[in-house]
């Protein structure tokens, strides 16, 4: 590292404001913003909005690359072969990758003109991202590569191979969380490659760090937990009084988020809390099943399904919630619980979550412990002293949770590697 100059980091991301579909975008932005005061960031993204800038960072959206100019600089067909990628216990089996990747600049660039950065052709987009980013990286100056989540790991691996610079991967979530611990699909294979080829692995929680060790045979000495945080923009809490006791479940209604636990707990609670209302804010493949369970149990009166809601509506619903419930089966972090805590809402969360490591004054139980979770929710809804103590001490916890703290940990890693 050159002492007088700032460290230069090539940052590979996927979601960036104003685009955000889950926790990845805000976390990526929050950390990058905090890092940008200490290091020089070059951020490569599938898409960017020119109006959205970050001081101290160069943001390059692949959607803004000029096709002809790009072809001029890189006239050859973009392709690469990395034979050893197809070795190991989890070799890559990607369509069209068997004998290396071949994609023309025109096709690659066209993929990112699409508003949707996910979509059915996601794997093709990942390949295009590898091709374009690795070409761009050849003319860029950087000391370390930082790749966020599986979508960018292959690009990170490729750039590491061609530049010889160290690779840091940032694990925001894992396929084993999203699907099942035993999953061994393409995404798992990509994650496995990233985990075994990175020089350092940043996990968003101890919980995720342990999952990397348990489900990916990650090298424990290479993995450190860097907790997520939430923008410290002040939240003005205007509590709305209601004549019912409300519990909020916020997030995708998928197996990972524990809708089955939610149902069982509410079923237990409902007979004892006559004015109970449960708000389920989110959509997902388990929503239909949850609605069916609720109907079968005759609990329609107790549930309000809002569907997907925007940030402003999230704030409105938070302002009138009495308890926040996150019964996730496997939650790498769980930023929404931090947001709830910022609204002075007592949180009942599963121990299978990263956020339980930083929200010390929430009530925590295993996601399968229906009795205990129901007991905790009952208590937070009924005992004012308990609520006040939890909320008061959570404010103290929240002061410890900030991106600056996390950025400092990341910078230590950069320095160690460069």
């Amino acid at each position: 590292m050159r002492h007088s100059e700032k460290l230069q980091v090539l940052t590979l991301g996927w979601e960036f404001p104003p685009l955000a579909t889950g926790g990845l975008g805000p976390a990526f932005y929050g950390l990058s913003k905090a890092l940008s005061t200490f290091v020089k960031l070059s951020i490569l993204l599938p898409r960017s909005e020119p109006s959205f800038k970050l001081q101290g960072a160069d943001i390059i959206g692949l959607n803004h690359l000029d096709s002809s100019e790009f072809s001029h600089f890189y006239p050859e067909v973009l392709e690469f072969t990395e034979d050893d990628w197809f070795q190991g216990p989890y070799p890559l089996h990607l369509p069209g990758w068997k004998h290396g990747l071949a994609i023309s600049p025109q096709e690659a660039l066209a993929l990112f003109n699409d508003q949707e950065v996910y979509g059915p052709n996601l794997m093709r987009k990942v390949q295009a991202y590898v091709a374009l980013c690795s070409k761009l990286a050849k003319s860029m100056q950087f000391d370390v590569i930082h790749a966020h989540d599986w979508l960018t790991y292959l690009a990170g691996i490729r750039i590491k191979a061609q530049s010889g610079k160290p690779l840091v991967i940032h694990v925001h979530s894992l396929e084993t969380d999203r699907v099942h611990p035993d999953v061994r699909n393409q995404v798992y294979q990509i994650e496995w490659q990233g985990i075994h080829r990175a020089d350092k692995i940043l996990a968003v929680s101890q919980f995720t760090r342990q999952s990397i060790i348990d489900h990916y045979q990650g090298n424990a000495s290479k993995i450190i937990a860097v907790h997520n945080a939430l923008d410290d923009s002040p939240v003005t809490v205007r509590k709305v009084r209601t004549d019912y006791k409300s519990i909020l479940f916020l997030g995708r209604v998928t197996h990972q988020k524990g809708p089955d636990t939610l149902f069982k707990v509410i079923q237990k609670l409902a007979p004892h809390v006559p004015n109970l209302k449960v708000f389920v804010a989110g959509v997902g493949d388990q929503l239909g099943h949850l609605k069916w369970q609720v109907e079968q149990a005759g609990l329609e009166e107790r549930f309000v399904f809002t569907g997907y809601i925007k940030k402003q509506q999230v704030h409105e619903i938070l302002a009138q919630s009495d308890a926040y419930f996150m019964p996730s089966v496997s939650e790498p972090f769980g930023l929404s619980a931090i947001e709830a805590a910022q609204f002075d809402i007592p949180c009942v969360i599963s121990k299978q979550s990263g956020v339980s490591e930083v929200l010390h004054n929430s009530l925590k139980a295993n996601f399968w412990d229906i009795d205990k979770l129901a007991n905790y929710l009952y208590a937070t809804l009924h005992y004012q002293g308990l609520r006040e103590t939890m909320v008061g001490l959570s404010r103290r916890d929240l002061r410890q949770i900030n991106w600056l703290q996390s950025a400092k940990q990341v910078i230590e890693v950069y320095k160690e590697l460069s």
Partner: protein
Amino acid sequence: MTSLCFYFQVHQPYRLKHYRFDEIGANPFYEDHVKNEQILHKVADKCYLPTNAKMLDLINRFEGRFRISYSISGTALEQFAQYRPEVIDSFKALVATGAVEILAETYYHSLSVLYSPEEFRRQVQMHEDLILKYFGQKPKIFRNTELIYSNAIGQEVADMGYLAQLCEGVDRILTGRSPNKVYKHPTAELKLLLKNYSLSDDIAFRFSDKGWAEHPLTAHKFASWVHRNFDERVINLFMDYETFGEHQWADSGIFEFLDHLPGAILENPNFDFKTPSEVVAAYPVEDVYAPPFPISWADAERDLSAWLDNAMQLEAVSRIYALEQKVKEKGDDDLLKVWGKLQTSDHFYYMSTKFWSDGDVHKYFSPYDSPYDASVFYMNVLSDFEKRIG
């Protein structure tokens, strides 16, 4: 002559079970009998029985020159009677030597003095009756739960006819004065014996601390510190009895220390052992000790914050005492007993968040995983009890 005055606190609470919200209105049984019995057996075997045997041996060996005092809570005595009656027998044997004084306290080891003078008096009377029944002694000296004391409490205790009360020697009240003499209440006829916390804590807290510069503490080393106070009247060593064998494990050498201590102290002919009654009879009052607000022997603060600090504790305490009139009007002895046991200060201590750090292993004194669990189970129980009272 300088006297050493030992007082040991013997107390066991009734711990509550993990009482669920769906039991409210359906289950009138609150206590975790299994855990209470387990803990009682453990402490009886590790502390009460071996320590009582050692004390009896020492009193006999020194022909009554080794003298000590105890305060034993009603909830501890009840559980001894239920699970290990031989513990009561061993205390009776100690009292029979004539070298042991039993002190008065609240039956339920409660904070009642802060909330209801009437309930306070009822519990002290209950305790006195029990002590008389078991030990044939009518206590003359009072010690309140966790040495909680203030001018107002002293006035109340004096009005009840006690000669003296035990207190913590708190620096901010002493303002440089020595704790090693007999004090009194500013106006009431009540003498005060103040704990010498430095020498008491050397035994109770620091004894097995390998990081302590004085570790290991031998009886002779400790005696040499005591002997430096030759120009003082009385050195009050007040501590939990569970110090012996429970807080300080047997393998720390605490019993060997105890075995050698009386001999080491009495080597100097200007030192002896006295019980609290003997101290107040032997030495004149020299000064006034007047805490305007309640003090205690707990934590560095020496105040009420271990029990009455966060909102969970305040809600629980205020709701249990709010039931007083209704419970008493019911005239149901069983309900009155349950209400009494729910007043035991340990319940509120378990809810303390003062030193709460998540995942910390300093849970030795709490049967629950967190202050929140302590609160949740207590409040569920209290909710059921409130329903029963109506």
